[in-house]
């Protein structure tokens, strides 16, 4: 019954990179899913052919529609986005298959989530799709997004910037949440799909596709219920060997205590078993949605650390101290500065610099100090990763001047522009060094959320990297990256 892996891969390609899409059940009413789905496909630049069916063949959003799929030309579409009522869907699938369509995303509700009768209809639909050689995603799903094809086939916003993160979720809302974080941070998405009722394919099936997908570097998943734990473990392990898998699980603590004959049994609670399973599989488990996104964005935009020695470079003393504390609470190590590095930095900095890690520049910067120091530190072979703090302070002052009553006089225009250029340059250099050296260089400042227009934040985002909203969050992301790197090292991966 189950499709061969070759067929499945072909079906997934039809889902994520279709040459044409049909919206079945397009509506003229802007409040209906059948309208919104068509709107989102048309509004976000999908370059393939777009068709729509409407019972009355009324034009929708300026597109001519046909009453049914049988009225469409053959072989012009690979994906049908189904918004029609459950009762008509078997006919929709048959007609779609007859036109050469290989994948159906079902937004329609009224299936497994709606009781026994719905479940029966769902099972029948899967059997039919199997017979037709079609993939069903959903039903009761929110949609599919694929930035390589500029495809936004979903019944909710947003459409994210393109990037390297592949999302698969048992909750449609969390697909939106992850994509909202992508919009805010600029660290983008390759593919995103909500599994809905997962009648035919579930989260691990999508992860399996992402593992071989050239557009995707990191998998990000949300799961709640797992039917077959062993199968989940096996499938997720295979993916995790090939790419980082960041996973957040809902209902982590809902499992009740079960009767346990042994003492060890009473210690092995549901959540601890799940946690151990993740560690064994090399899955990076996140405790919250925002942490999950931040970790996925870190894996997607920073190289894996080769060791745990961290250098902290800061223009703000307090942040340096707090960051050292944060590092002490992880498996990361605050590098004791080697003599040659101290000597090299002595040549660039005034005598009052910290001469210690965190490397506190102590306000002694001239025009090129920060990029020079950053480069010396990042290039040093003992340094495995760098956390850069205190960027954007000058351009934040520039913003106040720009908004104040004296601008642009008294030299304010010139100085504000200078600080903007400098701060953007600093964080751009940080990204370039990271890419060139294959070492994580993380930029952290609260300006990322307080004044996201800040030049330091812009410079980080323009380089495609995440600007961490605090050094603590940068350190915890780096610690998880190191944990995963070590997991791979220990297995010779």
């Amino acid at each position, binding site marked *: 019954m189950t499709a061969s892996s070759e067929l499945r891969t072909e079906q997934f390609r039809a889902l994520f990179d279709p040459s044409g899409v049909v919206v079945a059940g397009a509506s003229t009413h802007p409040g209906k899913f059948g309208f919104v789905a068509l709107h989102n496909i048309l509004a976000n630049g999908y370059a393939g052919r777009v068709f729509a069916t409407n019972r009355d063949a009324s034009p929708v959003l300026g597109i001519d529609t046909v009453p049914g799929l049988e009225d469409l030309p053959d072989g012009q579409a690979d994906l049908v986005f189904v918004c029609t009522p459950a009762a008509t869907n078997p006919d929709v699938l048959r007609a779609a298959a007859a036109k050469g369509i290989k994948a159906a995303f079902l937004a329609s509700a009224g299936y497994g989530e709606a009781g026994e009768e719905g479940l029966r209809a769902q099972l029948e639909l899967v059997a039919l799709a199997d017979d037709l050689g079609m993939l069903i995603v959903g039903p009761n799903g929110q949609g599919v997004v694929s930035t390589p094809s500029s495809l936004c086939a979903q019944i909710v916003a947003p459409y994210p910037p393109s990037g390297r993160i592949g999302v698969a979720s048992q909750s449609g809302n969390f697909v939106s949440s992850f994509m909202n974080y992508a919009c805010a941070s600029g660290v983008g998405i390759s593919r995103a799909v909500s599994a809905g009722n997962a009648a035919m394919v579930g989260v691990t099936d999508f992860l399996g596709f992402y593992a071989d997908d050239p557009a995707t570097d990191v998998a990000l998943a949300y799961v709640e219920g*797992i039917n077959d*734990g*062993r199968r989940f*473990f096996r499938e997720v392990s295979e993916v995790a060997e090939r790419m980082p898998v960041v996973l957040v699980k809902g209902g982590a603590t809902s499992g009740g205590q*079960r*009767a*346990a*004959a*042994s*003492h*060890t*049994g*009473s*210690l*092995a609670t*549901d959540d*601890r*078993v*799940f*946690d*151990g*399973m993740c*560690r*064994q599989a090399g899955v990076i488990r996140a405790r919250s949605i925002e942490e999950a996104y931040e970790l996925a964005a870190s894996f997607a935009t920073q190289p894996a650390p080769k060791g745990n020695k961290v250098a902290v470079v800061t223009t703000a003393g307090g942040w340096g101290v707090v960051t050292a504390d944060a590092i002490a609470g992880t498996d990361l190590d605050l590098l004791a500065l080697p003599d040659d590095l101290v000597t090299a930095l002595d040549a660039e900095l005034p005598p009052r610099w910290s001469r210690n890690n965190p490397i506190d520049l102590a306000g002694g910067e001239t025009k090129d100090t920060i990029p020079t120091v950053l480069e010396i530190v990042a290039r040093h072979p003992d340094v495995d990763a760098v956390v850069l703090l205190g960027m954007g302070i000058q351009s934040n002052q520039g913003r106040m001047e720009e908004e104040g009553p004296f601008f642009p006089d008294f030299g304010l225009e010139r100085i504000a522009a200078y600080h903007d250029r400098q701060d953007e340059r600093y964080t751009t250099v940080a990204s370039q060094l990271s890419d060139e050296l294959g070492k994580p260089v993380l930029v952290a400042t609260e300006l990322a959320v307080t004044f996201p227009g800040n030049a330091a934040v812009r410079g980080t985002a323009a380089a495609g990297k995440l600007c961490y909203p605090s050094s603590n969050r940068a350190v915890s992301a780096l610690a998880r990256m190191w944990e995963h790197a070590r*997991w791979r090292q*220990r*297995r010779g991966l």
Partner: protein
Amino acid sequence: MSTDDRSTGLAPGTHTLSEAESKALLAQHGVPMPAEQVVADADGAAEAAEVIGYPVVAKLCGDGIAHKTERGLVRLGLGDAAAVRAAATDLLAAATPDDGDVGVLVAPMLRGNRELIAGLADDPQFGMTVVLGIGGIFTEALADVSIRLVPIERVDAEEMIDELRTQALLGAFRGEPAVDRERLADVLLGLSRAAIATPELVSADVNPLIVVDGVPIAVDALVEVRDLAEVAR
């Protein structure tokens, strides 16, 4: 944890093996056990003690016995043959018909400041798991435990040990050397092998796993298995 929890927590259709049988099963797969013997009478106990070396522990041992401590069926720190004989005689006299076939288990009196707990637990979703935790009276309060799915590789066992939060307890401690991590990994690998080789196994409890001069040794063990009728089903 009291031994009461063990009996009340038994899943239907299962039973526990005696301490000696439990230990034999796990030892077969490489879980380190003390050199100990099960004997039939007081003379046998004294002979065993001579071989093992004093001081020794004597316990009444049998399939039906799961409440040794509560029933006073454990005698600690027996320093000579006379003490061993007296203890064995007492223990055998305390046996009831419900206990079935009984013997006296004579084991070395092992001392260590650190207790770990290890075992196997069957998870309804993920199946058989290997469990390692910090043992002793604060086991529940600390809940410092790491878990993996059977089977595990050595690297998994090493990571289980690294994952425990109370790492200070695994280093040199109160005049005792650091825990031998390789030997501790051997315990976990042995448990994993035992689970694979014993399909009827439902749970295993190695508690305590005492650290003696840095080496973990299973001082007590309890294995729960499915009844034969259940296995056949």
